[in-house]
């Protein structure tokens, strides 16, 4: 057998993730992504601590509906390169990583689907490169500096999890977020534990590989001294001027970015957006409602196509 990155992936990963792996050098890093189907592109962006696997049920459904589907793994997660120094990561750097991939693939008319940190990074790309983007979907994310989610103000468990030295211990040595953390943030935990949890854990196998799981939380603005405050201020300002067709989808049971607060704030910033459409799901709503979310996106894009044809 010829040795390749594809057939050296652990069996458990290959069983769930059957797509052809592709790699690009972006902004100095090796990024894994998949690129399936033909048509206008749908780019699916994940957050912490997941990777493209989060969208495994959605990819084939969107491809069958006549879309090209591109799913990158953020540098530091999934099958992408995982830097071992905290200072390798920044919000702007991750947005630049995505920008590099979108330019290399020369994607235009993108439907950008943003979840968790895929929101701040993906929406920053969209606002800086509006000519490449056709529409947006936002799910369990945010795009403004303050106030933080109530969940993010609590010491137990969120601030404690990534506190100095405790983050490297709980999330690094003990994979608290990559394993049990995702488990606690889905609705059907039995199904998740049986079908996917081990695969998420297998892609972040060592403490050093899990660095970004405690680094990303430290970039969430909690007060006026936050590192990314100005970027989030810019993002909210740009979004409030944005006329891109937008779809808002939220997990009904989301305890991190609760629907009542966060989906409504997106609706206020983007009053032309459709939704919010509530589906079964905590923070990782794709694990519970992947096909339903794919359907919402598919119908939304079909309506956009019809609108363009009738013009």
């Amino acid at each position: 057998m010829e040795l390749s990155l594809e057939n050296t992936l652990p069996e458990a990963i290959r069983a769930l993730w059957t797509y052809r792996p592709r790699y690009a050098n972006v902004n100095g890093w090796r990024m894994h992504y998949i690129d399936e189907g033909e048509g206008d592109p749908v780019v699916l962006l994940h957050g912490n601590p997941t990777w493209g696997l989060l969208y495994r049920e959605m990819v084939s459904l969107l491809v069958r509906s006549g879309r090209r589907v591109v799913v990158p793994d953020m540098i530091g997660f999934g099958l992408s390169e995982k830097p071992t120094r905290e200072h390798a990561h920044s919000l702007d750097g991750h947005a630049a990583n995505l920008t590099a991939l979108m330019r290399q693939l020369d994607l235009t008319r993108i439907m950008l689907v943003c979840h968790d940190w895929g929101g701040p990074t993906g929406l920053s790309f969209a606002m800086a490169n509006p000519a490449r983007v056709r529409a947006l979907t936002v799910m369990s994310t945010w795009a403004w500096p303050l106030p933080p989610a109530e969940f993010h103000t609590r010491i137990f468990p969120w601030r404690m999890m990534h506190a100095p030295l405790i983050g490297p211990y709980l999330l690094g040595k003990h994979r608290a977020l990559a394993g049990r953390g995702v488990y606690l943030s889905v609705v059907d935990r039995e199904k998740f534990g049986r079908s996917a949890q081990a695969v998420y854990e297998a892609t972040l196998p060592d403490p050093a590989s899990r660095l970004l799981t405690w680094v990303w939380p430290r970039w969430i603005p909690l007060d006026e001294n936050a590192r990314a405050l100005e970027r989030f201020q810019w993002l909210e300002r740009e979004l409030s001027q944005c006329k891109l067709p937008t779809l808002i989808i939220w997990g009904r049971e989301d305890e991190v970015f609760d629907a009542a607060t966060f989906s409504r704030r997106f609706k206020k910033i983007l009053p032309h957006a459709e939704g919010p459409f509530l589906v079964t799901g905590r923070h990782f709503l794709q694990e519970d409602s992947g096909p339903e979310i794919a359907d919402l996106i598919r119908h939304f894009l079909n309506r956009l196509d019809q609108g363009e044809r009738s013009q």
Partner: protein
Amino acid sequence: MTGVIVVEKPDLRGKRLSFALAEDRVAHYPEFRDFFVRAFDLDRKGLTEPGFVQAPSGLGYALIFLGRSGEPFPSGVEVHAIVDALEPVAEETLDRDLYAILRWMIAGVGAPWTTEDFDRTGRLYRIPAAPPA
């Protein structure tokens, strides 16, 4: 009580420093850096020597503080177990000691950080060293 005490520099002959944990941003919450400065007199000692603690197992640990241009000292810290030079570490002992050292840190940082919240977080994520409720 955390069972962790600050000690003088131990005799390191026949020993090695076994890397256990690293933190690049000890001031992510500034009160954590303030704690280490107080606990090890770092404003006076700076980089002259590591801080040393003894953990509940009796094993010694070196806390090596790191500086970074443009940031107050220390910017980071590494925790190393002091073990017999050619012997592997006892991983369960190391994990229990690390938990105790972090618990001691939280107690020293003080309110609003509490050892109760640390233990609750440890139990939520099923950390073996976390004490039962």
